[in-house]
Structure formats: C-alpha cells, structure tokens
C-alpha cells in the first residue's frame, strides 16, 4: 500500500510549531512507519512535491516568498492545514499590521534604531520583499482545517495527524482549538 504523504512548511513564523512537532518524540517513529514526510524545513527537500496528501503550514503570509509557496502548496496538496496561531490568525507576525507601510517599519528598525548599521537589507532574489499587510493563510488560499496554538501542543498535533491518517479532519472542538 502506498504510504500517506505529509508535508510541513514554514512561512512567516518563528518555527516554534515545528519545535512542537519534534516534541511528539517517539511517536515520530510510528508516524514514519505509516507516512512519508515529503517536504519540511527539517527535511532536506528543495522542491515542493506534487500529490501531497496533507500539508501543515506554519506561519502567516508576510512576504512574497510566503505567498508564492502558499499558492504552490495549495496547488499540490489535497488537504492544507493552518498549523499554529500565525497561520490561523497572523498572530505575532501580524503585529506589524497596525503600523502600516512596511517600508516605514524597515526604516524605523534598520535605519533609525541606534544599534544598527543603518542599512535596510537589500538582496534581490534572497531577501523577499514584505507584503503590505501580513495575512492569515486562509485569506490567501483555501484552508481545510485549523490547528490553533502558539505553538499547538505536541499531543494536539499528534491527534490531528492521527485523524488525517484515518481519512478524517482533525478535532475542532473544545481544547483542541484553544489559541495562545
């Protein structure tokens, strides 16, 4: 039987959700028995593969690279999950939104803040331009299920994956959807 294929991706977030993913500890071995992790920041895969059964997306859509990857994930995944509060709501990543124009924010942080060298990072093709507003994942692509939490606790991620492996959507009632 073909193994289930699962991907995880990291957009505008702190990677804390992936740390929590690793916190599933020995259950990761059981996961590896029944599923292939075909793309992930913790696996050395350069291109997002086609025909992924489910992709867990950490982070909000904050820059052009995030946007491009989000669209590619949607096109190549049967199920997309917002993985953690940043993907679900924007969360900390979106705290810049009330401040408005990202160029002004970069100016404040890199030029006007006293302990910096006074230069806004500029490396076309390497440092992606910021989008005007940080957006939750479901405002950019269709999302099939939500896994809130900052980060979602390991047992919540495990319960979600166990549901997915049985062909169901993750639990979305009670403490399974607690934010923060």
């Amino acid at each position, binding site marked *: 039987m073909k193994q289930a294929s699962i991907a995880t991706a990291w957009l505008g977030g702190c990677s804390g959700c992936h740390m929590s993913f690793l916190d599933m500890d020995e259950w990761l071995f059981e996961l590896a028995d029944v599923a292939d992790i075909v793309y992930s920041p913790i696996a050395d895969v350069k291109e997002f593969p086609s025909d992924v059964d489910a992709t867990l997306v950490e982070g909000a859509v904050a820059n052009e690279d995030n946007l491009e990857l989000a669209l590619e994930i949607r096109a190549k995944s049967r199920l997309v999950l917002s993985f953690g509060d940043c993907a679900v709501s924007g969360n*900390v990543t979106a705290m810049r939104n*009330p401040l408005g124009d990202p160029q002004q924010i970069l100016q404040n942080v890199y030029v006007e803040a006293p302990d910096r060298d006074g230069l806004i990072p500029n490396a076309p093709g390497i440092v992606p331009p910021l989008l005007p507003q940080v957006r939750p994942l479901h405002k950019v692509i269709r999302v099939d299920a939500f896994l*809130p939490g900052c980060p979602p606790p390991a047992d919540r991620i495990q319960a979600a994956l166990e549901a997915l492996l049985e062909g169901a959507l993750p639990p979305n009632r*009670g403490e399974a959807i*607690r*934010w*923060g």
Partner: protein
Amino acid sequence: MRDTRPTVNISFDGVDYEGYVGESVLECARRNGVTIPSLCFLEGLSVWGGCRICVVEVAEGHRLRPACATQVTPDMEIKIETPRLRAYRKSVLELLFAEGNHVCAVCVSNGKCELQDMAVFSGMDHVRYDYQAPRREVDASHPKYVFDPNRCILCTRCVRVCDEIEGAHVWDISYRGEHAELITEMNRPWGDSLSCTWCGKCVAVCPTGSLAYEGRSIGEMEHDPVMIKRLAVARSRGEWLDPEGAI
C-alpha cells in the same frame, strides 16, 4: 431565607423550570444550573446587554433577545442551543477578535481570559472576517496598572464598576461605532487622573488582558471578577455597617 417572589413557569430547550417574576432569563438560567454563555454581564453590576453573546431564542416569532436584559414571562419557551444561536455566537466572537488586536500568544491574560475561553466554548477555530488591525496606543501612565486598548472589547465592566461600586466614574466610552474607545476622565492619561482612587476594581473585572497590573508578563495576569458579587452582596446586607449605628 425563602424567596417569596411570585413564580412563572418557563422552559429552557424544552425542559421546564420555575422562574421568579422580575428576574432575567440569564439569572433564572444560572440559578437553575443552565448554561447560557455571556461576556459583558457581571453579577453585581447593572445590565449592559452590549456583547450579544447571551442571545437566546424566545419561541414566539423566533426573535433573538439578550438573556441578560430580558425578563422571564409566563410560559416562556427559551431556546439556548440551536444551530442558529451557535452560529451567531461564533460570529459575534469572530467580530470581536477581528475588531481589536487580540494576540493571545503575547497577552498578559493568555490562559486566564474570558474571551479566549469563550472562543473555545463557541468553537472558533479561525476568524472569517478581515482583521481591522487598528492602531491603538497603550496607556502605561498609571503607577499601578496598564491599559491596553488593543485587547479591549468595550464590555464596559470597568466603566460600570467604577461608577456603580467605587463611585469614581474614571472610565467612559468615547467616540462612536468602530471608533468607540475606552477613555479615562476627559480623555487624559490614566496616570494624570484626579478621580482614580487606585482601587483596582476595573482591573479585577476586565474579561481580557486589556486592564492589568503593571509589570505582569505573558499569562501572568489573573482577574477577579467574582469579587464584585461579593462586594455587592455584602453591601446589600449592610455587612460593614456598625450595628450600633455609630458609623
């Protein structure tokens, strides 16, 4: 003490209960151990009816009414758990989250927040509306407390407790509609307030992390809204009055 008020027969979701004439649907439900979720309501304070979390269906005409501001009437058939009401409650919560800047992960009340708990209760796993991301300045001018308007849901508990229990009326709502915001005195910094008595009742009743003790970090702020009921009950019984009448 036996309650001698006249009674009426009512029902919650098809189960019969006895209500007292003059009591609200919410009071009646709580007294009978029936859950109606609420947010702006607080026992001991006047009724505001602003948050719309406690809306119920009253069978005739299926009109929605806030349980906190609706009195029980004879043979009232009240519905609490219907698909329509669950959908409305969730929408109300999503609108509250979309309106301010509620970032649970970095909030002083994370894990101890009535708004966060209500989101869990209502099944809010994401917000369908566009976040408004308003720009609001934190007022940290008070020596003991901090006011963060980003986390304010305009429930007016602080306004009511300061006016009705403490008698200082430091807080009020200014502006209208989406611009409505909480202000201290005549929209001056809280720390400059001449009327604030530093009693902390506003902080005690805040359902979110909007009002907190100075210096609290993430998840460290515990509120004490039940304190107001204790105060109101004790006051109504005259518990602090000198029995000899000297004070």
